[in-house]
């Protein structure tokens, strides 16, 4: 079981570690700075640090977060003169070739090989422990990018990168709002996979079921059954049994099928957890009760888990990277927009409140 949780928050990096007496805050860094994304890649920590004025920075630590070195952040190349402007479909303004946010970081299958997803929609690859990055032009240059739009941010962004555990050339990338893009050859070629997803507020004849425009808030893949993926979508919960090539909506989820976060049990593809909220223009816990939901049967039924979580009124919301599960599938941690952190050591049956006074939590990751 993992005895370490790393947090990226609105005001810095924090790490909790467990010893015989329980969980304790052990490390903090970048105090006052926004840390939207973290990765622990075989003991090396990577952190995106967003400076309000001076842009997104990228840091690496090889001593558990005690000291950090700044590396060059992924950078978009100059736009070639012959490359057409891609206009944001909402505003008809060009989508800039400029890094706005690091929104996802994942190991790419070998030590020091990394994927980085960004806003405004570029996927980057590093094969040298983050020393340098290259924009994956094969995805960035897809003509369909003209249909991508922002979801919550002004421009589209890659928030989920699901690497196949047995074949790291197979990746599935979740984009808000551009559906799910799939590559079987390490990013050389791509195909859209968000078939079956739809918006409940947009008629099909208006593009409500167009895969290119879908907003999967978060996508995760089961390590033991990699063809099973789960998505918490803007309008519901979806399951794929064919490696993210098609999706089935899970209906009748109580108290809500709206939310941002999802995790799947690493060994049991039918067990997944979600953090529901009142949809979609409200975004607070249904009836003010902060709960986690769990299915153990592939979405046929859901349990509402609340033992140790706060009763109403509780206006905590979990962002899309605010829920994580450890490699054993026993421990879960959830961090909230109001700075609370809970951990469960029994698959969500009971929760322990580690703090109510952290900064707003954007990213929770077990080591």
């Amino acid at each position, binding site marked *: 079981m993992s005895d370490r949780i790393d947090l990226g928050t609105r005001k810095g990096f924090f790490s909790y570690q467990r010893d015989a007496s329980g969980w304790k805050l052990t490390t903090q860094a970048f105090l006052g700075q926004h840390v939207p994304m973290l990765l622990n890649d075989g003991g090396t920590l990577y952190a995106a640090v967003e400076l309000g004025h*001076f842009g997104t920075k990228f840091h690496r630590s090889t001593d558990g977060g005690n000291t950090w070195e700044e590396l060059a952040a992924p950078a978009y190349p100059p736009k070639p003169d012959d490359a057409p402007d891609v206009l944001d479909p909402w505003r008809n303004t060009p989508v800039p070739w*400029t890094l706005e946010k690091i929104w996802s970081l994942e190991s790419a299958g070998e030590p020091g090989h990394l994927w980085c997803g960004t806003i405004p929609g570029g996927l980057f690859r590093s094969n040298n422990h983050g020393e340098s990055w290259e924009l994956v032009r094969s995805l960035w240059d897809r003509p369909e990018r003209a249909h991508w739009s922002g979801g919550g941010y002004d421009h589209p962004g890659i928030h989920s990168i699901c690497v196949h555990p047995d074949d790291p050339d197979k990746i599935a990338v979740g984009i808000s709002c551009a559906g799910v893009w799939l590559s079987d050859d390490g990013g050389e070629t791509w195909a859209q996979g968000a078939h079956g997803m739809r918006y409940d507020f947009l008629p099909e004849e208006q593009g409500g079921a167009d895969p290119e425009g879908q907003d999967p808030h978060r996508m995760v893949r089961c390590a033991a059954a990699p063809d099973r993926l789960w998505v918490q979508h803007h309008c519901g919960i979806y399951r794929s049994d064919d490696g993210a090539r098609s999706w089935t909506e899970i209906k009748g989820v109580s108290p809500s099928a709206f939310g941002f976060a999802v995790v799947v049990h690493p060994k049991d593809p039918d067990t997944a957890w979600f953090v529901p909220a009142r949809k979609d223009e409200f975004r607070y816990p249904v009836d003010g009760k902060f709960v986690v939901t769990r299915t153990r049967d592939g979405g046929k039924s859901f349990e509402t888990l609340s033992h140790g979580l706060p009763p109403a009124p509780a206006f905590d919301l979990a962002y899309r990277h605010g829920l994580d599960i450890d490699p054993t599938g026993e421990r879960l941690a959830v961090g909230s927009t109001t700075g609370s952190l809970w951990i469960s050591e029994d698959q969500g049956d009971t929760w322990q409140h580690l703090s109510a006074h952290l900064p707003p939590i954007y990213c929770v990751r077990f080591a």
Partner: protein
Amino acid sequence: MAFIALTPHLQSHVDVDRREIVGATVREALDKLFAENPRLKSYLLEDNGAVRKHVAVFLNGESVKDRAKLTDPLPPDGEIFIMQALSGG
């Protein structure tokens, strides 16, 4: 003789003291500084070369006219001052 100085806020990230600077334009002068301190470039400019939205570049007390390419001519007695706008929370 032209000079450049950075806001103390920026100096907490990138150590550059007030110093003499040479160039026909603001960008030319900054490029010489970036050659010595490559990390500074990403703090001031977007990937596409424009001044970051929340960074202000003043030349002799006035905001530069060309925030996209910094083509403002740098007079011999020019004083460039770079500071942050108010943003964030």
